[in-house]
Structure formats: structure tokens, C-alpha cells
């Protein structure tokens, strides 16, 4: 028994090769961080299966339990409350220990903890190993930290759902795969996580699978992601063909052998970017993310805002050396990013579903992250990834609290109005004060108002886009100037649609209905405490990376905000190689905005503009007369109709891709499969049967006939052998 425990402990501890002398970083139980969510999945999964049996038994015996009554809930419904968030909290604490240990040392090289050899064929081998470095620890902090908060929120949000244990099982499994994705030490292991989170995304979008529309949304997400995954695979094969390995460390070590701007590295990075497009919902594969809102709202917060969809950005940041070697691919990354940012922002202007606004906003913000990593500002991209995880998780959870309240109000009066449509909301700041305040903080953060988190991260990305355009020897300078301007426009649109959402939801007259108004209520503490924590992070999260140019000026409160460019320096060991490549091939950045002016000036301009937009939007939307859904008969026309219908992209894809595929499939099914293949098989069957029927005529049952045929046969054989 103790031997088993010892070997288990060895498995969890692993064997690390901390081969750096500068600082000694001893990873603390990194395997357990990954293992805990997996154990949570197993425990919750078991409870889920038991739960199904228990509830089936209780229905059969006629003593159906009432889930909304806390005392009569079965243990299978109460245990996941502790297991789900519990394993997350424990994983977060272990990550925190690792993070604080890493803070103490200056880690030059990644620490890789080996467990066992996963694949070993000839010269090629893939280790099951976890990589701990500055980038993965930031991702782990975001995943386990924000993940824990969202798990806690889910306890309140999902408490009456009959599939409660199943929900937590999927959620834990998701976190497990997400951690594998960011901690894996090779592209192969990353791909395991990549596919795993896709699976969990599918399972959780279609969580309420008895609703056909929601099941279809899950399917759509899965299929669209699969298109991107092909790109990831091809890129991985190309890497293997060229380097004979898929390990991060050995590939980046040998990356100098690639030709700058060469065809191979361009192909590799473009294929990786196809994968990133799928997972991170960029043009043209973004269509699955708005539909993914069919899942429970905490799922949207965790998977479709804070963590999984940022995997593409992580991929590009992780492969920063390769992307730095391929300026063409980087331009494509930045271009797709900024176009998506603008495109999605315009769609968000006209949406009425609160979650749809947030979904398009997420697509738009992901575009910003890609703009950042596309212009070589990898730290800025990761920075925005982090702050976005804070404020977008907060916005989604807040919208979850609103929907929860709206749903219960409509449930109490047995009306079937849409609980997610903002036209049915309004004036919610009175019953839901905390939710309103926290969401306003997130809105100001995403709009880029100083001193909230989003100001620093978004501004840095826009600044770098401009700086890249003005840099000496930068490729495609005009192109980057256009990117920079588009990014500014998208930032203003962001301020507008977010403020519109807030005003429609929380201010003005209440449109929920006479009877329902009294039932609207603030979220319980288990839901608003995560909101409050995230609100704090949305305020202060940006302060870890105050740009140097700003820290001494007004934006840094004259140097009062202490952590000037902290994240930038923190990620330096990761990005140093990429920056080296840029310096060798392009010369140093020259920090000039396209129209002159320093970083501080442009930051001031952008925050004043964003503030003005927020202020004006509040004024405009408050004066607008908004009607509840059942009274609203306005017919949209012109461009707003196009926006409301999301540029008809879904319809276009349906016409151009889905329907032709369906037609080809139907042809293959009816003509080739049912006609030719099945026909051939059936013909063989019928032929054998007919032949058998014919031959059976000879089987008369008369012994004399048999004897006669036997004799003739023998004579025939004898005769044949004689002559």
C-alpha cells in the first residue's frame, strides 16, 4: 500500500530538469495542478451517473424530490458543490505557490517536469511532460483563478438544474484539458489539450441537449473548430518533418536554422494560425462563438470568454519565434485580428440579446489580442488576454446574474418572455445594485477608460500597432497604419455597444412587466462575491503592466502605480528570442505613432474619446424609447438591418458551404451508397439465394436419385482422370 502511495507521489512530483544556475526554481507538485481537476471530473462524473439512477428510482417510486428545496436534495446533488469548486481552489493554491516561487528567482529557461514517455517510435518521441515558465504560469493563474471564481458562481447559477453533477464534471474536465493545453511541453501535448477543450466546449454548449437548437449549436462549434484543427495538425507535421521533434524547447532552439521570411516558416505559422482562427473565433471561422451562447452562462464566461478562446493567442505567443521569422504571417495575423475586432464590434451594435452582445464583444477583443501578437507585441497580447479574462468573465457572470433574476421573475409568473433580451430589461440597477456596479466597472475596463485594466492592455496593443507602422524597416508600413486606425475605430465602437448594453439593461424604465417587477432580485452572495472579486481585478489588473512612457506621467499617477512594465519584463525570457529575430532582421523599433505624438498623448486622446463615447451613449440611449419584446414592432431597414442580421454571414455560409455539402452528401447517400454499394451487396445476396433455390431442385430426398448422381459423378471424375 505504501509502495503504491510512494509511486503515486513520484508520479505527481515527476522528475524535473531544472538546469539553470541563475535561479533555482523548484516546481511544487505541478502534476497535482493538472490531476486535481481530472479527479474532480471522475468524482463528479460518478456522482452524475449515480444521480441519474437515483432520480430515475425516485420517479419510479413516485417520491420525486424537489431540487429547489434545499433539504430534500439527494447527496449526488449536494456533493458536487464541494468537489467542483474545491478541486479548483486547491489547484489555484498550488499554482499560487509555484507562481510565488517563480517570482523569487530569475528563471532564464523553462523548467520541464517529465513524467513518462508518451510516444516512442524510432528517433521520434513525445514526453508526457509539463513545462513551467513565465508564460504558462500566467495562463495557469488565469485558468485556475478565474476558473475557481466561475465554479463558485456556478454553484448559485446552476443549483436548481437537474444535471448539476454532470455540469461540474464537464467543467472540471474542461479545466483539466485547458491546463494540459498551456502546460504541455510540446505541440503534441498542446494538441491533446486543444482537442480536449473543444470536446468540453461541445459538451457544455449542448449541455441542455434536449433543446434541438442548443444541441445544434454545440455541433456547429465542434465542426467549425475541426476545420481549424486540421491547420494545427498540418503545422505540427511540418515542424516534425523539419525538426524531427515537436518539443517546444528543441524546436525553438533550432529555430535559427529557418530562413527569415522563408516559405517553410510562413507555411508553418499560417497553418498554426488557421488552428488559432478556429479556436479563437476569428474571421472567417468566428460563427460558432455567438451560437455557443446556448450553453449555461458561467460556461460562456469560462470557456467562451476567459480561457479556451484565448488558446489561439497563447499558441501564437508560445510560437513567437516562428511568427517573428515570418513577417507575412504576422501581417496576416494582425490583419485578421483587426478586421475581426472591427467587424464583430459593428455586429454587436445592433444585437438585443445580452449574451450575443457579449459574444461579439469577445470575438472583437480576441481580434485585438491577435493584432497585438501580430505586430510583435507578444507581451501586450498576453496582457490583454489576462485583463480580458477578468473583465469579460465579470461581464458574462454579471449577465448570468441578470438572466438568473429575469428567468426567476418570468418563472414565478409563468410567462414565456425572453429572459435574455435587453428590451425586456431596463431599470435593473434598483433590484440588482451590486451586479450593476460591478458590470459598470467591467464596461469601463473594456471601453478602455483610465485607470481600469482594459485601458492599459488595449492601449498598449493599439500603440504597438502604430509603432510598428512607424518603425524603420518594418514590413508593410502602410498596412499597419490602416490596422492602427481600424483598431482605434473598433475601440470607440466597443465603448458604444458596451454602454448601450449597460443602459438598456440597468437604466431607464423597467420593461420586464408589471407582475414580474417584484420578483426581480439581487443575486445571492455565492454569485455576487465572484463578481466583486473580478471587479477588483478589472480595476487593478492592468496596473501590473503600466507602460514605461506613462508610468511617470498622469496615467501612472506620477509613478505611484508601482509595476511599470512588469508583465513585459516578466515575459522577456519567452519573447526575447522573437525580439532578437526582429532586431536582427528589421532593426530596432522606433517608437513613433504614425501621426506623431508620444504614447502618453495617444493614450490621453483614446481615453478621452472613449469617455466621451460612453457619456454620449448614456445620454442617447436613455432618451431612446425602447419597447419590451412583445410590444416592439419596429421593422429595421437599411444598414441596421444588415447589422442586426450579422451581415447575413450565417446565411451565406449556409448557402455556399452547408447546403452544397448537404446536397453532395445526399447524392453520395442516395445514389452511391444506397444505389451502387448497397445495390451490389444486395445483388450478391439475391444472386446467391436464387442460385441456391435452383440447386436445391436437385435435392429431392430420394435415395435413388442421390445414388444415381453419385455414380455419374464418380464416373465423370474417373473418366476425366483417364483421358
Amino acid at each position, binding site marked *: 500500500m505504501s509502495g503504491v502511495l510512494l509511486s503515486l507521489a513520484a508520479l505527481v512530483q515527476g522528475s524535473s530538469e531544472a538546469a539553470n544556475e541563475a535561479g533555482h526554481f523548484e516546481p511544487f507538485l505541478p502534476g497535482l495542478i493538472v490531476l486535481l481537476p481530472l479527479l474532480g471530473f471522475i468524482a463528479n462524473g460518478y456522482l452524475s451517473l449515480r444521480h441519474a439512477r437515483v432520480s430515475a428510482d425516485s420517479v419510479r417510486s413516485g417520491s420525486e424530490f424537489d431540487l429547489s428545496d434545499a433539504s430534500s436534495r439527494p447527496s449526488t446533488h449536494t456533493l458536487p458543490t464541494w468537489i467542483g469548486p474545491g478541486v479548483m481552489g486547491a489547484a489555484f493554491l498550488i499554482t499560487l505557490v509555484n507562481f510565488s516561487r517563480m517570482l523569487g528567482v530569475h528563471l532564464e529557461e523553462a523548467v520541464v517536469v517529465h513524467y513518462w514517455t508518451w510516444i516512442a517510435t524510432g528517433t521520434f518521441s513525445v514526453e508526457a511532460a509539463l513545462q513551467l515558465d513565465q508564460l504558462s504560469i500566467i495562463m495557469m493563474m488565469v485558468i485556475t483563478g478565474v476558473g475557481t471564481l466561475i465554479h463558485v458562481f456556478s454553484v448559485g447559477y446552476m443549483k436548481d438544474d437537474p444535471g448539476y453533477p454532470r455540469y461540474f464534471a464537464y467543467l472540471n474536465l474542461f479545466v483539466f484539458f485547458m491546463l494540459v493545453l498551456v502546460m504541455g511541453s510540446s505541440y503534441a501535448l498542446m494538441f491533446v489539450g486543444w482537442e480536449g477543450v473543444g470536446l468540453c466546449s461541445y459538451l457544455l454548449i449542448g449541455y441542455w441537449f434536449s433543446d434541438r437548437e442548443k444541441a445544434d449549436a454545440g455541433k456547429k462549434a465542434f465542426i467549425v473548430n475541426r476545420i481549424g484543427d486540421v491547420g494545427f495538425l498540418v503545422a505540427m507535421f511540418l515542424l516534425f518533418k523539419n525538426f524531427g521533434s515537436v518539443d517546444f524547447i528543441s524546436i525553438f532552439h533550432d529555430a535559427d536554422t529557418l530562413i527569415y521570411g522563408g516559405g517553410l516558416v510562413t507555411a508553418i505559422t499560417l497553418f498554426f494560425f488557421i488552428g488559432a482562427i478556429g479556436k479563437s473565433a476569428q474571421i472567417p471561422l468566428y460563427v460558432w462563438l455567438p451560437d455557443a451562447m446556448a450553453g449555461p452562462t458561467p460556461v460562456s464566461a469560462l470557456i467562451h470568454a476567459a480561457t479556451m478562446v484565448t488558446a489561439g493567442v497563447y499558441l501564437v505567443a508560445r510560437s513567437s519565434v516562428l511568427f517573428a521569422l515570418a513577417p507575412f504571417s504576422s501581417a496576416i495575423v494582425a490583419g485578421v485580428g483587426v478586421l475581426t475586432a472591427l467587424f464583430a464590434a459593428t455586429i454587436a451594435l445592433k444585437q438585443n440579446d445580452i449574451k450575443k452582445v457579449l459574444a461579439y464583444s469577445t470575438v472583437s477583443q480576441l481580434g485585438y489580442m491577435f493584432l497585438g501578437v501580430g505586430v510583435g507585441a507578444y507581451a501586450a497580447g498576453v496582457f490583454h488576454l489576462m485583463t480580458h479574462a477578468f473583465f469579460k468573465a465579470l461581464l458574462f457572470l454579471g449577465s448570468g446574474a441578470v438572466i438568473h433574476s429575469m428567468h426567476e421573475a418570468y418563472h414565478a409568473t409563468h410567462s414565456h418572455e425572453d429572459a435574455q433580451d435587453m428590451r425586456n430589461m431596463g431599470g435593473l440597477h434598483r433590484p440588482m445594485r451590486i451586479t450593476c456596479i460591478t458590470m459598470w466597472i467591467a464596461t469601463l475596463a473594456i471601453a478602455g477608460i483610465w485607470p481600469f485594466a482594459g485601458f492599459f492592455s488595449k492601449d498598449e496593443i493599439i500603440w504597438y500597432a502604430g509603432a510598428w507602422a512607424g518603425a524603420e524597416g518594418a514590413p508593410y508600413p502602410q498596412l499597419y497604419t490602416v490596422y492602427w486606425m481600424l483598431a482605434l475605430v473598433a475601440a470607440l465602437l466597443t465603448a458604444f455597444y458596451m454602454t448601450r448594453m449597460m443602459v438598456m439593461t440597468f437604466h431607464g424604465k423597467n420593461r420586464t412587466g408589471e407582475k414580474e417587477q417584484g420578483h426581480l432580485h439581487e443575486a445571492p452572495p455565492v454569485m455576487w462575491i465572484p463578481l466583486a472579486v473580478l471587479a477588483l481585478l478589472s480595476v487593478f489588473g492592468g496596473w501590473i503592466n503600466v507602460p514605461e512612457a506613462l508610468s511617470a506621467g498622469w496615467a501612472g499617477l506620477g509613478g505611484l502605480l508601482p509595476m511599470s512594465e512588469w508583465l513585459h519584463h516578466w515575459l522577456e525570457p519567452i519573447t526575447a528570442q522573437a525580439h532578437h529575430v526582429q532586431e536582427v532582421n528589421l532593426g530596432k523599433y522606433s517608437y513613433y505613432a504614425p501621426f506623431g505624438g508620444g504614447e502618453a498623448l495617444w493614450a490621453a486622446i483614446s481615453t478621452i474619446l472613449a469617455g466621451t463615447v460612453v457619456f454620449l451613449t448614456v445620454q442617447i440611449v436613455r432618451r431612446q424609447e425602447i419597447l419590451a419584446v412583445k410590444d416592439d414592432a419596429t421593422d429595421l431597414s437599411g444598414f441596421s438591418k444588415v447589422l442586426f442580421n450579422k451581415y447575413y454571414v450565417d446565411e451565406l455560409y449556409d448557402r455556399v458551404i452547408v447546403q452544397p455539402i448537404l446536397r453532395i452528401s445526399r447524392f453520395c447517400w442516395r445514389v452511391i451508397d444506397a444505389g451502387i454499394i448497397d445495390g451490389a451487396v444486395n445483388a450478391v445476396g439475391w444472386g446467391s439465394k436464387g442460385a441456391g433455390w435452383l440447386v*436445391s431442385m436437385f*435435392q*429431392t*430426398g*430420394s*435415395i*435413388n436419385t442421390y*445414388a*444415381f448422381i453419385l*455414380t455419374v459423378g464418380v464416373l465423370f471424375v474417373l473418366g476425366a482422370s483417364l483421358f
Partner: protein
Amino acid sequence: MITEALVLSAILFVIGTFGVLVRRNAMIMFLCIELQLNAVNLSFVAFSRLFGIEGQIFVFFVMTVAAAEAAVGLAIIISIFRHYETVNVDSFNLLKW
């Protein structure tokens, strides 16, 4: 000498074969099969003069098997007779699908 024996063997075999083919009495057909077996036995013995003792050894095998076969065959015929009260092979044709 051997030629005559083989001719006799062939005649006996053909008689046996025709008996099996043309007669309808199961008992007679059975006897004809025995006749065929013994015709073959005769040629075995005849050839053993030329090629050695093995032919005669083989005859014992054939006789042993024939005895066993006779026991089983007769038992079948008796049970058929008990069932149909006839041994005319035309009156039963169950030996088919």
C-alpha cells in the same frame, strides 16, 4: 490368373452398383453395397500377389468397417421399417432440406 480375378471383381462391382441404382428395397440395396465392398476386397487380394502383403491387411480393415456399417445400416433399416412398415425407398424422401 490375376486378370481373371480382376475381371470377376469388376463384374461383381458392376452388379452391385446396378443393384443399388435400380432396386427399391432398402434391404437389397444394402446387400448390393456389401457386394461392391467385397468386389473391391477381391481386387485387393488379387493385387497383393503382385505388390505384397499390404493388400490383404487392407481387406481386414474393409471387413471391419463393413461389419460396423452393417450394424448401423441394419439398425436404421429396422427403425425405418418400424415407422413406415415398409422398406421401399420410394416411400420416404426425408433426406433433404
